[in-house]
């Protein structure tokens, strides 16, 4: 059984009388103790998916299962909170600037365990050590810490109640390269120790290489290709995946269009290989062993 199973989740927003199809039938999964990476350019619905999974947005359609239990219904809210946690994109914004680190952590701790403030101190100090922060950090305010330190605090906070799934919404995009590497190392260490499943969201396919088992490529509310890591990097099939892998050479010159084609393949307007048949939307099909693709290119 998969740890997280997302099935045909839809989430539409209405913006200026236009319907924005942020998620349009997304399928995704995370295996227990492993990492699935969700990759796509900004604005393609990655963060929306993360927020739907943790229950911040209710989905319009589709089902989400955690360890086989449906978590979209209100009945399983406590189960969801206990098992799914999230690390946000910008560490500077995800801690209340008026609270000390101690208070932010204590608040998270006191939700499921009744513990007095004094008794919580040694536990929290230990927790900070496990994310390689000095104990004195406990009494600092967020503005006294650097971005990397703050992100470590956020990771520590999300792990406080031992979740089985951690959603990492571009945890390194606000950090510089050397800090990014350290955070990734920390995450790998945590996964090894606690066997937490990660859903790692990123716009950077190269970063994902270091920690993902499965890679899901998303384009405007749809998964266009997914496969185990090696297959994606050795043999990318979807033109969009190829484009992402080459993103360093800045081939993504053309700006993504806010108005998507009414029907047909979503990548149609930017695709260099488009054909007439692409006006009918392709579905995800297993092209080769474990390699799924939503494109007519490789089909007979």
């Amino acid at each position: 059984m998969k740890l997280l199973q997302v099935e045909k989740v839809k989430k539409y927003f209405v913006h200026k009388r236009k319907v924005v199809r942020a998620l349009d039938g997304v399928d995704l999964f995370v295996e227990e103790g492993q990492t699935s990476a969700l990759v796509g350019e900004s604005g393609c619905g990655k963060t929306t998916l993360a927020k739907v999974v943790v229950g911040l947005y209710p989905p319009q359609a589709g089902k989400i299962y955690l360890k086989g239990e449906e978590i979209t219904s209100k009945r399983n809210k406590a189960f969801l909170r206990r098992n799914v946690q999230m690390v946000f994109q910008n560490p500077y914004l995800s801690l209340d600037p008026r609270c000390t680190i101690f208070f932010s952590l204590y608040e998270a701790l006191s939700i499921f365990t009744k513990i007095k403030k004094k008794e919580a101190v040694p536990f929290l100090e230990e927790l900070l050590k496990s994310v390689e922060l000095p104990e004195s950090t406990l009494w600092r305010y967020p503005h006294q810490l650097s971005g990397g330190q703050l992100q470590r605090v956020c990771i520590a906070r999300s792990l406080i109640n031992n979740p089985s799934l951690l959603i990492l919404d571009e945890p390194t995009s606000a950090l510089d390269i050397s800090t990014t590497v350290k955070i990734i190392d920390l995450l790998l260490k945590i996964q090894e120790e606690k066997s937490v499943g990660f859903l790692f969201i990123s716009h950077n396919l190269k970063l994902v290489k270091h920690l993902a088992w499965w890679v899901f490529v998303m384009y405007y509310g749809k998964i266009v290709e997914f496969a185990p890591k090696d297959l994606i990097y050795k043999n990318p099939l979807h033109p969009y995946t190829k484009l992402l892998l080459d993103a360093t050479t800045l081939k993504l010159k053309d700006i993504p269009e806010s108005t998507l084609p009414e029907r047909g393949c979503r990548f149609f307007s930017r695709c260099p290989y488009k054909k007439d048949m692409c006006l009918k939307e392709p579905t995800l099909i297993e092209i080769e062993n474990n390699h799924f693709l939503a494109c007519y290119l490789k089909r007979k």
Partner: protein
Amino acid sequence: MRIFKELIKNKLAMISLVFLSLFYLGAVFADFFSPYPYHVDDIEYLWSPPTRIHFFDFHKRIFFRPFVYKYKFYIDQYYRRIYYEDRSKVYPIKFFVHGFKYKLLGIIETDLHLFGVSGTKLFLLGADSKGRDLFSRILYGSRVSLSIGLIGASISFFIGILVGAISGYFGGRVDNVIMRLVEMMMMVPAFYLMLALRASFPPNLSSTQVYLLIIVILSFIGWASIARVIRGMALSLRERDYIYAAKVLGVSDFKIIFRHIIPHTFSYALVAIVLSIPGYILGEAALSLLGLGIQEPQASWGNLLSSALGIVNIKIFPWILTPGIFIVVSSMCFYILGESLRDILDPKKKISI
């Protein structure tokens, strides 16, 4: 602490802070500072002008403590009392004298007063139509007028912040219902609402009841506009990542509102509270001026002014306008203080620390 440091640098704010502290000291220790009780009238001194304080007598001899003469009057051809100083005897002003009994701060029973004269009466700011000392009455009146400002503002802010934060945080239908209610409150002109509310209660209430009633009425009018602003702040605050993080962690909505939404509105609220206090002082003054507020013989700045309603009275006895000066000065001090607080708390200026 930083706020206080910057306040000290601002001269205008410091001056108004000093004035306000003097006023509030005067209100708290009104019995000590006032030479006479607020309700004792004296037929000898109807409409007596402010007593002149002398240092030299009319032989140009210097006295080492200030003194006054006794005021006597004759009736002129318009049947008016004309007061004059009877210079046959000197009455020195004494400090820390024994006078009427009172309880200091409501606990310590004493009869000590800051100053007083024996043998005659000393009216620093003149006397009113019943021969009561205006200075003492202003001091006693400041208890009502100044406390209504503080209490009224606090109550309406308590309600406004709570309602606004709930409305903004939950949004959607809750927000819609609360905001329509707030708009209904704001649609009615405040002064008419105040009069209508006062009219809906019986006129013959005791002065304590009236006092509480005025506070309730003024807070009832004041909370709506605050709720509206706080709601707007809460609407933007709830989109912050740390609120989402708290939600994901499973922190209850109630705790999120009290820990992460309301504290972030405090710096705005502090400024707005200070700026709104004059409104409450003026509101009380308006009600009392019309005879709907604090009743005689109890004093408040508003009902002291009611004797100055006729232009003739103002012309002949100009000193009865002094409560008005107190209202103006205290309101102005609150405005200046509020404006300087706003400048200090302005987030754009924070960079210069």
